[in-house]
């Protein structure tokens, strides 16, 4: 029963991939060759690969460097720096890119895209790196020091190898997000596969050209996932002992303190202060800066309602998979869980495209309705709900169910009196993560929202695309305010480790 439900969820998550496979089969090899092997696609591929490689490199350096400074040195104000370095997560990438382009219209180059996207995604590497630093056994670093290694030697030969898994995970997340990023790059007029799919869709609607481009995009995602699995390899970095939960004596930077502070300040200024300053200036100088309170209230209401519905649907869908993954460990459960993740690694633009096509073909009545939009949200954000449900199930071992049974409690009563109360916090956390992701979701919403339905993200998008930044500003402010709580949670490391997986752009 549970297996059947989890299989249905996995099938839903696979829908976009199946759609592309069917489309490829229908077009046939010559059609595919004609649509894919052309100069335009080569150019897009070059653009995309360059941007992914550049962003991965920059975010890895920024993330690991900042994590080392905050976790392992005697830098003043480390707690404050930590919060400031996580804070950009509250700014959707398409908001900060609008901010940059409104200040510096000449930023529509590779360098501009690299700068904006790297700053927006650096926390994806920074957070796991910080967590990994905290999890390292201090005794190893002390032993290395005792063996005569310098600070740099300890970093390179002891810390960095142990950070590998965390940094790989973080950079994979960055790479997948860059592949899927639409809003920020469209604003910066830097064409990648995702923006090209969107343009193609706008031009020819549901044509095979858009689908083939999406196919190449999905292929890139799969290559990344496979590469990560290969690179991760045998992660034999288990701690051999329990280790001491004590603070390491922080590294004193001495004369390097000034430059280190300056570097952190620069990162924070560029990733946080510049976009916020732009937001403020939009209010001040924009000619369109009359806040339309009624429209803002309606849009906020619509967004919250959609987000709440999506959170409920996605969490319910995540329950069978999360349960199976823990309680019925085995090849079937693993396969279903992995399949669901795989489907969800597909960019939002592809999910949206697939759902448009499938709904037109199979259920025309559902095209551009809320259920289809909710299905897209569910496919996109299932991993974060599954991960939290799974963590909750792991923390409530089956012994509680056994004890309740031995005390004469029936199965439905056990579900109500034991299982649900124990899972509630995890389920709530998962639902909250989905909720917050939906609040700032742009791409799928643009393609799938019923006509006339505006969310904060799409309202911001249409105003800022028309360069009416004053009109766009209030929507950005509400999105930032709604995202702030999640950011605070993440900076406190209160969420299960894997919950970072798949934070939204």
């Amino acid at each position, binding site marked *: 029963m549970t297996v059947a439900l989890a299989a249905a969820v996995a099938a839903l998550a696979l829908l976009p991939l199946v759609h592309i496979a069917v489309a490829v089969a229908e077009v046939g090899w010559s059609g595919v060759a004609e649509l894919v092997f052309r100069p335009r696609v080569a150019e897009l591929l070059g653009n995309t690969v360059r941007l992914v490689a550049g962003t991965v490199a920059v975010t890895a350096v920024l993330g690991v460097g900042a994590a080392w400074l905050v976790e392992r040195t005697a830098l003043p104000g480390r707690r404050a720096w930590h919060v400031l370095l996580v804070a950009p997560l509250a700014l959707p990438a398409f908001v900060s890119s609008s901010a940059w382009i409104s200040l510096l219209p000449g930023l529509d180059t590779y360098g501009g895209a690299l700068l904006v996207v790297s700053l927006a995604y650096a926390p994806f590497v920074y957070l796991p790196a910080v967590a990994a630093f905290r999890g390292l056994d201090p005794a190893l670093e002390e032993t290395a020091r005792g063996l005569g290694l310098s600070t740099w030697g300890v970093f390179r030969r002891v810390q960095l190898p142990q950070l590998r898994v965390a940094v790989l995970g973080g950079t994979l997340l960055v790479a997948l997000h860059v592949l899927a990023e639409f809003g920020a790059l469209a604003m910066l007029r830097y064409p990648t596969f995702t923006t090209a799919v969107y343009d193609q869709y706008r031009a020819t609607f549901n044509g095979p050209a858009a689908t083939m481009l999406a196919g190449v995009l999905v292929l890139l995602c799969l290559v990344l996932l496979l590469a990560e699995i290969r690179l991760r390899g045998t992660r034999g970095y288990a701690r051999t002992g329990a280790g001491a939960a004590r603070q390491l004596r922080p590294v004193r930077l001495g004369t390097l303190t000034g430059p280190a502070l300056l570097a952190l300040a620069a990162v924070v200024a560029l990733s946080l202060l510049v976009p916020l300053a732009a937001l403020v200036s939009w209010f001040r100088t924009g000619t369109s800066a009359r806040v339309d309170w009624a429209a803002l209230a309606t849009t906020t209401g619509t967004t919250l309602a959609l987000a709440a519905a999506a959170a409920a649907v996605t969490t319910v869908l995540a329950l069978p998979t999360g349960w199976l993954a823990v309680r019925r460990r085995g090849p079937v459960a693993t396969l279903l869980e992995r399949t669901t993740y795989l489907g969800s690694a597909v960019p939002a633009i592809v999910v949206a495209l697939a759902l448009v096509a499938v709904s037109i073909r199979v259920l025309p009545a559902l095209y551009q309705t809320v259920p289809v939009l909710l299905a897209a949200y569910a496919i996109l954000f299932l991993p974060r709900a599954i991960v939290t449900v799974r963590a909750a199930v792991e923390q409530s071992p089956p012994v509680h169910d056994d004890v309740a049974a*031995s005390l004469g409690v029936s199965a439905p009563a056990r579900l109500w009196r034991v299982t649900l109360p124990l899972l509630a916090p995890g389920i709530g956390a998962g639902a909250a993560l989905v909720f917050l992701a939906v609040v700032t979701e742009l791409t799928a919403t643009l393609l799938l929202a019923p006509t006339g339905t505006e969310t904060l993200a799409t309202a911001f998008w249409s105003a800022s695309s028309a360069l009416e930044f004053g009109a766009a500003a209030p929507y950005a402010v509400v999105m930032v305010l709604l995202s702030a709580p999640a950011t605070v949670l993440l900076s406190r490391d209160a969420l299960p480790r894997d919950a970072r997986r798949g934070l939204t752009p």
Partner: protein
Amino acid sequence: MSALTVTGLAKSYGRTPVLTGVDLHVPAGTTTALLGPSGCGKTTLLRIVAGFDDPDAGSVELGGRVVAGAGRGVPARSRGIGYVPQEGGLFPHLSVAGNVAFGLPRRLRRDRTRIAGLLALVGLDAALADRAPHQLSGGQQQRVALARALAPEPSLVLLDEPFSSLDAALREDTRRAVAEALRATGATAVLVTHDQAEALSTADQVAVVRGGTLAQLADPRTLYREPRDLDVASFVGEAVVLDGAATGGRVASELGELALGRPCPDGPVRVLLRPEQLRLSAGAGVPARVRGVDFYGHDARIELELASGLRVSARTEGGDLPAEGAEVGVVVAGPAVPFPATAPGVPRTSEPTPA
């Protein structure tokens, strides 16, 4: 309370047999310890009795009613069996009172005097009733778990390694409180443990489980003094094993001529002594050299090398200890237990079992 009878119980996980025909009878109102090394199948046996697992063959009878086997299985919730898991397994989302009252009918769940009574039964203060489980010590959690299991007045209580997660000092207190509570309610109880001292001191009878079958079922004293074979002997305590020749109720061995605890045919024989039967003296007795002294405070374990090079252990009071390398005499007190000379199993001297 009811008697528990297990007949021919067998269970495999995949191709691995875990239980291969276990027979066990626990008289009503008594406590039985299932003693065995980890992986011997004792927890599986407990889970089948509780109804969390089904046997492949054999049956479980509780108070004359078949609850498992012969094509019928009473679900766990209808068996009336209290279960205390390892580390207590308290519901983290409920208070102590909520945990204790969990199995009571709805109208009784708010009855504070009843909860206070149950807490008193396991030696806990009623003031703990509103605490959360994580605010209790490990020993207190175990006692609450027992109170929870006893609340619906079960016919049988099962305890799965209830003291293994506690440190030494707490373990003794908790063990005594649990034994007293079980005695006070007159409950029939089955306790799983891998600690022989715990089994011998807590239970009315001890069932030694070995490789999926019952090796011996006896009261603690009989088990220790007259184990069925040398394997059981060395499992329930440290053993001194000597080869010798029996004639007319006595045996000639390296430690002199010893009395036999039970009759055996004349000829080659292998005998069991316990280290506390070996007494050291200044002059008299068989000469031996002291090769090591483990001092525990209340007593000590002396490793002795006999003339033949055989090493044996003696356990003595902690007062007057010989120096390492000293020459001492060994006198044996009490009878030796004979086994066939070809007795399989242990080497002639066994390593001490860690306490």
